[in-house]
């Protein structure tokens, strides 16, 4: 348990969940603040271009509606990633069904994120993002969960519904693909 800026020990996720269940709304704010950016990053890394805020919001709404089923066998963040990933898959299925394939313009992507964080997309970062596009969907999920979120292989296996061994293989294949892509560029 890491100390808070005020010097008090930071409350664990389970403590905050119990507080929210007993009617303390501030606990929900703390939980959302603690995990929302990680969820947004995961969605962006997994290839979501639009509606990331809505996706994160839906993830929290679903998670809080079924908090009684969270047993604490994994971390809350891993559980949230699992929910968010299912929502992303549902969303992609719906998009495929509706056959409304709107190609994502490169300029849209840059302007959206550039405006949001006030950052200019540097050439090196663009190359990295393109290299992630070269990965298969599962490789990309495993790789970004490992590298950007710092999840263990065991946690990744829970999120993507696979095994720890398979997650390791996906990671190794992904880093080789990314390295080769960056060399060729």
């Amino acid at each position, binding site marked *: 348990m890491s100390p808070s800026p005020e010097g008090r020990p930071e409350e664990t996720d389970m403590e905050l969940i119990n507080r929210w269940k007993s009617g303390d709304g501030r606990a929900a704010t703390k939980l959302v603040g603690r995990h929302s950016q990680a969820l947004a990053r995961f969605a962006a890394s997994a290839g979501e271009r639009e509606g990331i805020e809505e996706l994160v919001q839906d993830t929290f709404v679903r998670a809080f509606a079924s908090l009684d089923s969270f047993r604490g066998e994994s971390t809350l963040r891993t559980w949230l990633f699992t929910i968010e990933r299912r929502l992303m898959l549902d969303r992609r299925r719906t998009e495929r069904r509706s056959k409304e394939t709107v190609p994502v313009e490169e300029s849209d992507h840059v302007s959206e994120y550039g405006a949001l964080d006030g950052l200019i997309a540097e050439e090196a970062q663009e190359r990295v993002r393109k290299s992630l596009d070269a990965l298969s969907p599962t490789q990309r999920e495993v790789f970004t969960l490992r590298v950007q979120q710092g999840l263990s292989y065991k946690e990744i296996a829970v999120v993507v519904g696979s095994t720890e061994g398979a997650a390791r293989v996906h990671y190794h294949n992904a880093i080789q693909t990314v*390295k080769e892509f960056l060399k060729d560029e």
Partner: protein
Amino acid sequence: MSKCIDNEIQEMLPDVLHGALVSDARARVEAHVASCESCREDLDVLRAVKSAAIFAPSIDVDHVVRQIPPYTPIVPAVERPARTRVVSWLVAASLALAVAGGGSALVIRQWGGTSATNVASGVPSAPRQSTQTPAAATREPGIPDVKPAPVEPSRARGLALASDVDALSDGNLVQLMNEMDKFDALPGSEPEPVISVDSGDSL
């Protein structure tokens, strides 16, 4: 540049970026990376990928929290006492038995009536008996005339045939016998004798 063959170190490289290694493991990885060009290159790639994550939009926490529904605990289903469950099962079993029994009786009754009608269709009906029963003719005076309950003709006409035969007249009997002769229930000829295939070689 030769590819590193230490998979364990390679798999721990992302943990270096997130400060998730204990001091011993961290020192071991750092010592390896210092002497391994392949792992240094991997670590550079991982740093670049990690920093690329800053592109995610910032989330309005308050807006998200406002969408979260209030907590409603899941009420567990009330466990009924074992005795209630046994009684329920008994009632269900009794109902099932009654339905199955009633259904079977209906089917048998329906089937029996139909077949008996078919059998009886070719048989001439027996003549009506006298309206006065022998008992009525011999009864004592003063004893009230108790009429026997009218006997329903059996639907299973095949079973009732044996008793009706006695009441048939000679002419009807002859007619019945002639009808029975026309039945083709028996084979027209004797079966062929079974020819032994024993060649006589066996002892």
